[in-house]
């Protein structure tokens, strides 16, 4: 259909863009390169400044996307090639195999139970998150189907006890499997949904406009920044979010990695790594970390008022509606705000507690503070996929690596190519509400283009 649009990225911006366009009557291809739509928001515990449960408000929208007749969801899918012909875009996508028949899989989880290998989860690893080689991205995933880790199928997990990968021929040659426990478990359920021999699939279609909604990424602390790579009890704010989440690796218990005990003294370091040499930290204000810290301390205090929470910060960014009173709520709940930038962190070898050294900016004094768990607010960086995608789409990135609008004031959200629009975290640090606004606006532009 040549009246359709392509939305790249299935996070909260992509979802809203797709939903609005679909409701308008436009056919939408919603593409995400992970196994489920939902993006960053699906992994959060709460949203500031109201402490709404994140998945509770996002899941109904994901569900609407799934059920809308105008939306086709393509997960595990990458945009490979885009060519503009007569004002329309010919796009070529590749759907990477999940090794699961998405039509047949009901997400029952029998295969997951049967899988013998647990590996460290990419996102939750440091806070104890594990997943099986066949797994569901998260319980509310859309589509609600499992996927098999390609490493397993390629035989790379054999040493970790994987049941397959030792054969003379590789999986693509077979049409059934007598060894794989996931295949067996699925067959036992009478489904035959696991298809290890599945191949990647190329897809081609034509669209009239494209919306880029690739979202944000949380910056990983580089190396030993403030002890991150060295000490077990130093984590990022996203990892802390996973700790708070009832659906996370610890079922919502704020326990520290080293001894799995509830942390009673926790500190947040804002702007961690900011202003350091290139490649060591984020050189700009990411604008949402202040509120994330306020949220995390408030929730921590709600769980257990006796927990001592300290936020080390420099400038407070409380820019949005209700943000300032949210900060005040944190202060009223006993959260201690210290204007300081800690410069050094040491671990106490016995207790695995952490001692921060910092200069209090208001008094000029050099002070120390011992905590049991340290959270680094590392800021928001461009998505790693931006670079490749910018080449595929032939649109520019700015010097930071975010997508660039051609004229932000006269024609916001437009790029140098007519018909390609931007929204959400693809352009820079942004919060959920702002993403939703831009998503609606980009949808407007995308659907009216002829």
């Amino acid at each position, binding site marked *: 259909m040549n009246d359709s649009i392509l939305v790249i990225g299935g996070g*909260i911006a992509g979802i*809203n863009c797709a939903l*609005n366009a679909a*409701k308008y009557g436009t056919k939408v291809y919603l593409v995400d390169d992970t196994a489920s739509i939902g993006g960053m928001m699906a992994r959060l515990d709460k*949203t500031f*400044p*109201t402490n709404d*449960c994140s*998945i*509770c*408000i*996002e*899941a*109904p*929208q994901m569900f609407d996307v799934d059920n809308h007749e105008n939306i086709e969801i393509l997960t595990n899918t990458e945009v490979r090639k885009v060519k503009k012909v007569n004002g329309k875009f010919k796009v070529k996508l590749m759907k990477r195999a999940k090794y699961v028949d998405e039509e047949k899989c*009901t997400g*029952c*989880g*029998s295969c997951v139970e049967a899988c013998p290998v647990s590996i460290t989860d990419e996102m939750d690893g440091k806070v104890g998150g594990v997943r099986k080689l066949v797994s569901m991205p998260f*319980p*509310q995933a859309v589509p*609600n189907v499992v996927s098999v880790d390609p490493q397993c199928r390629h035989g790379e997990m054999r040493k970790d006890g994987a049941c397959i990968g030792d054969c003379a021929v590789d999986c693509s040659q077979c049409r059934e499997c007598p060894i794989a426990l996931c295949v067996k478990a699925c067959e036992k359920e*009478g*489904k035959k949904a696991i298809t290890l021999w599945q191949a990647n699939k190329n897809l081609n279609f034509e669209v009239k406009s494209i919306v880029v909604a690739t979202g944000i990424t949380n910056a990983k602390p580089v190396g030993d920044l403030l002890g991150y790579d060295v000490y077990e009890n130093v984590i990022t704010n996203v990892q802390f979010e996973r700790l708070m*989440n*009832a*659906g996370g690796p610890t079922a*919502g218990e704020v326990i520290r990695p080293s001894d799995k005990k509830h942390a009673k003294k926790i500190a947040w370091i804002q702007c961690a790594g900011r202003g350091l040499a290139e490649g060591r930290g984020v050189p*700009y*204000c*990411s*604008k949402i970390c*202040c509120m994330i810290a306020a949220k995390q301390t408030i929730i921590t205090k709600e769980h257990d008022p006796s927990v001592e929470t300290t936020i080390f910060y420099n400038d*407070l960014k*409380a820019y*949005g*509606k*209700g*943000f*300032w009173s949210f900060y005040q709520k944190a202060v009223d709940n006993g959260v201690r705000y210290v*204007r300081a930038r800690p410069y050094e962190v040491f671990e106490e070898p016995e207790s695995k507690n952490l001692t921060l050294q910092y200069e209090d*900016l*208001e*008094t000029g004094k050099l002070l120390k503070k011992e905590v049991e768990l340290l959270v680094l607010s590392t800021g928001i960086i461009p998505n790693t996929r931006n670079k490749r995608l910018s080449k595929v789409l032939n649109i520019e990135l700015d010097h930071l690596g975010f997508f660039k609008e051609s004229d*932000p*004031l*006269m024609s*916001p*959200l437009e790029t140098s190519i007519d018909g390609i629009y931007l929204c959400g975290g693809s352009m*820079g640090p942004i919060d959920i*509400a*702002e993403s*939703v*606004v831009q*998503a*609606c*606006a980009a*949808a*407007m532009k995308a659907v*009216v283009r002829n």
Partner: protein
Amino acid sequence: MSKDVRVGVFVCDCGTNIAGVVNVPEVVKYAKTLDHVVVADEGKWSCSVDYITKLQDLIKENDVNRVVIASCTPRTHEPLFKRATKEAGVNPYLLEFVSIREQVSWVHMKEPEIATEKAKDLIKMGVVKAVLLEESQEIQLPVKTDCMVIGGGTAGMNAALHIARQGFNAYIIEREPKLGGLLNHICFISHDHHKIHAAKILKKKIDEIGKHPNIKVYTNAQIEKVDGYIGNYTVTLKTNGKSQKLDISTIIVATGMKEIEPEGQFEYGNDQRIITQLQLEKLIGMWNTQGENENVELQIPNTKLPIKDIVFINCVNSKNGSRGCCHVGCHNSVKNAITLKKLNKDIRIHILYRDLSMIKEEGEALEEAKRLGVKFLRFPDDQYPEVKIENGNLKLKVYDILLGKEFEMSTDLLVLTTGFSGNEGVDEIKGHLKVSTNSEGFFQESHVKLGPLEFPADGIALCGCAKTPISFKESCEEGMGAAMKASIPMKNGYIEAEGIVADIDLEDCNQCDLCSKRCPFNAIQVDDDKQPEVIKALCKGCGLCSADCPKECISIVHYTDEQIIAQVETALAENPEKKIIGFVCHWCALGGVDMAGVSRLQYPPNARLIRVMCSARVSMKMMLRAFELGAAGVLVAGCEFPTCHYISGNYAAETRVKRAKRKFAKKGYDPDKLWNVWCSAADGPKFANTMREMVKQLL
């Protein structure tokens, strides 16, 4: 009950997920014995294409006209079975979904017999409800293509242009004599590196609007009255003393904001050298026109006093007990400092601030200002600078945090970066549209995160600084986004609502008006005789009105009192003392129940859950019936605060539960048997723990 009710019960094995615990053949056999059931069948995977075909055949063969599906959870699979039922010729509202995986087999894995009994109970409750179900259908309300945009500033103009581009009609209602709003009062747009004059941007927009045949602009216009609802508004407008009426389909609110006058603060009003940022913009505009000289001589108008030193105080009337961050102040002050430095590089500028939070491009402007020699000085949150006029000189005392010292400085011009509030006329608009505002005079959107461009009531969009202070670029985006929201119903030509809606039986109605006041969506309109009428296309079916109606004359399709009470009675028909009746909302509470299931959390099997759309649907009468029949406990479960899919239904439910406790105690029941839990859809453990606790304390 009519004799020809024919129920089909379809029980799913879900592979071994259900059948591995629940004895499905026994359950099917039991289902066949229930009243009105003409067919019951077991499906290995009920949602598979082959079984759906079989299910449809069975419906047709047996002339089934009520369908009960016993399988996973309605939150994921109800739409699929609704479609299947519809294709088989049965009205989809005659389907009832029973959850025997998430509520039975996954949470009672070690007790197959008890699980089987519970599954039977739940299916019986489902059948009893199915028998009472009535047909319904999606409701459509026609919407034409006339959009009224209230406010002709940046957001409003952008909204109108995008509406008009689609061939729809846009009517801009502007209070002032000309379009442009705040854009009329500023020189440059922040973080544009001073390339384009705001006036140029404004002129381009106004020209575009003037040329567009589909946009009609009413200046000096005031809204006198708004009647009706989406697709159907009649707006009375007063322009230059004359009244006229417009037929309007959708509305976009873009009324903007105004700078707060810092009366009585920092000597403002006592000296013309103390001004606000917007007043400074006016001076800059004046100085700007004095040619392209290297260094423009800056003077105070009238007195011609020369200006060498300028001090800005940021966060005036912001970030205090009553107002938040003004969001635009930091980059406004930096932007204006740069402009001034470019006009005259010898000017000394100090910006006194609390926090400087400038993201991305704004950060670059900050660096530029520093390069140009603008000085920044941070004062403590609780110690604002003091301003004095001494012998005609402006003097300041300010404490610098970084140096830990107090400074005295004098200045020739003092600029106060003051906060903003909602515009004049907000209260009237609020009354006309029946929407709400916050204490700062800004309109309250339907949801802070996911509904930033709309109000709870369908058909009214919101954008720009009317909601909270935002930048020029953000206003443009919001205008476009709001245009999208308003365009969807206009493009479709109608809005559609699910058939789960309120229905008022006027016979018993005593015109108390409570329902229309309590409806969060303005879906109940009251005519001149105080007769309420449900605008069905606007009703979301939460049931708040029904549960609160003192005359019990409002029923909710698919969730009638009769149906829910029949479920309560069926659940408690045997061994009521061992059973807990749980009313759970469809959204988060049932989400929590499902999460407990997915996570295989094992909890006692005493609960019999009854789904409602919102916890606010649960009336006193329903809870009381469970008490009368001797239930071990009653649970009302809704969304975790502050989330509610019907704005505030859970708050209403909480209030009602408190009242019910008092009332039931007076009747001689133990109020401690009535529980509530507010549970997020991610919080399976919370629901499971509630069940364990209830059983521990009540049984």
